[in-house]
């Protein structure tokens, strides 16, 4: 309990620092949405109108006042209104984008974690044999291929050339969202390539992580004991070794949530997928401050929540922590 409370205190403090940074960093960006809007009129506005528009999009009050207002609205979970997708509340856009990013990243992490870890277990158990010496390096090297390249090549080959997969969107636009087979099928179909490109560059990390931790555990006393007791190979492998090896994996999974959510930006950009990253990119270009802030905050919070969950999981899986 003490352990969890300590962690909780950290999360609250970290959240506050992150909220503050998320407020100030976008403010330092030059420009506001008005210049772009005025430009779109190509001289059809007179001086008074230009002035009025500039004023109406400008930010009012001192930085300190804005900060206090911002803290207040964050506390109320009020993210303001998007200036680019007017008059959509930022929260609903964030929710929309985050849903699709979660679909992509969620499916990709799920498969990458499971398949990567299974391969890692297999490689550790058979270390030095063919599978380990060939697939371990290859999988990890895939990990070092930039998502930009992998996404681009998949997009080009399967969407543009072979036309097996659609270009962009999260689902067939003629379908109304709902929990029917047709809609879910369409979502999966549209998500295939983006998920594949995230999967390809991420499962190697889980493979290597699992393999290394497993190898270290294989010579621990409890494993040797379990073997000496004559327990089945399978049982030792999964119940004894893998179960313990999964803990550090879960911790790194939690820490990589932010990295993955943010990193999906490139994939979403290439595949025109309406996720958080795609919206963020547009928001940055058109200086949609409320969206940028909301998005940074959302990512920070999701990392913190993921970490908290991993702490809880650690406490449950590792009895030693319950005392400390």
């Amino acid at each position, binding site marked *: 309990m003490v352990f969890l409370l300590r962690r909780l205190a950290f999360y609250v403090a970290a959240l506050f620092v*992150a909220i503050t940074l998320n407020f100030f960093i976008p403010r330092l960006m030059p420009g506001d949405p008005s210049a772009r809007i005025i430009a779109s009129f190509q001289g059809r506005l007179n001086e008074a109108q230009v002035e009025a528009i500039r004023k109406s999009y400008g930010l009012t009050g001192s930085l300190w006042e804005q900060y206090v207002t911002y803290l207040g609205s964050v506390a109320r979970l009020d993210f303001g209104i998007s200036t680019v997708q007017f008059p959509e509340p930022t929260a609903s856009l964030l929710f929309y984008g985050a849903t699709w990013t979660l679909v992509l990243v969620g499916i990709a992490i799920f498969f990458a974690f499971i398949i990567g870890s299974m391969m890692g277990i297999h490689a550790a158990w058979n270390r030095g044999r063919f599978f380990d010496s060939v697939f371990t390096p290859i999988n*990890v090297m895939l990990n070092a291929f930039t998502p930009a390249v992998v996404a*681009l090549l998949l997009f080009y080959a399967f969407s543009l050339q072979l036309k097996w997969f659609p270009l962009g969107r999260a689902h067939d636009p003629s379908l109304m969202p709902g929990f029917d087979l047709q809609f879910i099928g369409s979502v999966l179909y549209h998500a295939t390539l983006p998920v594949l490109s995230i999967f390809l560059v991420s499962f190697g990390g889980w493979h290597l992580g699992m393999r*290394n931790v497993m190898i270290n555990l*294989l010579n621990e006393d409890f494993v040797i004991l379990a073997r000496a007791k004559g327990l089945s190979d399978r049982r030792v492998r999964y119940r004894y070794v893998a179960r313990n090896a999964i803990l550090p994996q879960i911790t790194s999974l939690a820490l990589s949530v932010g990295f993955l959510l943010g990193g999906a930006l*490139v994939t979403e950009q290439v595949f025109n997928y309406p996720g958080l990253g795609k919206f963020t990119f547009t928001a940055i270009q058109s200086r949609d401050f409320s969206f940028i802030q909301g998005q940074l905050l959302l990512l920070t919070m999701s990392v913190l929540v993921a970490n908290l969950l991993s702490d809880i999981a650690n406490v449950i899986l590792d009895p030693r922590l319950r005392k400390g």
Partner: protein
Amino acid sequence: MSDIIQAKPFSLTEALDREAMASMAPSQAELMEELRVKPKPGWTSRLPPSLAAFVTNPKGMAGVVILLALVLFSVFGPMMSDYNPNRRAGKPHVAPGYEHVLGTTRMGKDVFTQLAYGGRISLTVGFGAGIAAALIGLAIGISAGYFGGRVDDVLTFFVNVILVLPGLPLIIVIATLVEQASPLVIGVVLALTGWGWPARTIRTQTLTLRTREFVLSAELMGERKWRIVLKEIFPNMLSFFVGGLVLGTIAAILAEAALEFIGLGDPNAVTWGTMLFWAQSNMALQSGAWWEIWPPAFAIMVTGAALVLVNFAVDEITNPQLKAGRKISLIRKFLKRRGRSADVF
């Protein structure tokens, strides 16, 4: 990425070698042949142990050789070309051939020349940011781990905040703060946001080292703290530092490529990332000009792969049990042939 776990000083191969020697009679030379143990210690035995371990590691050496080749290519490649990477050198989208070894871009620039020049910048930014991040991580990790107490609390807090902040989106926002995100700016931003992981690993390692005898004895002898840090702790951190450096470099090279690819870099700069950006904006693939997109993509992938190989070697040095895996199949065969159970491994 990979969790580096402190291992007990134990070498499986050594133990086995001894056992094998003792229990069986065939000629020693044969046995050594079968287990591929060299009869005489090679030149590597004269090197410091950690370096020797690295040099004898085939994966690591392969990575180093590839990296060296890339560096040599970027250093000397431009000299083999008469073209200016920033200038038009021929007609748009000329296919690879005698005049242009790797063809030309849509704007008529020579791809080979760009690839070589781009390598200079991309590798410099990647390694620069990787080294800088690893150095910051080293300083903060050792300080937090060694001094402990309040210092540790404060530093650990910042390490965790850095780890928690959303990386790429934040970098994008920062990149737009400065008007032109030149490779240098990107490198600095990546260094400033990338030190969380190495700091965390190194802090954990320092914590375990702090209670070791040699550190305690140095303290008892009244050594100054900073001397202890430099003389006793730092040398033991070297491999973790290198590990952090390698991973940081991979991350920096990938992030730089990603930033430039989505158009936030400086399109004037010739780097592998901007080459990809231009190829994508000018629809090189759709126009069939594969030679505009493959060379930079391939260069980034090879660099990443080489760094991964180096990281394997570093992992095996910091964690000898991983290395044991390499010889284990030989040992298995060895034991099996002699009718002994190979199950212990």
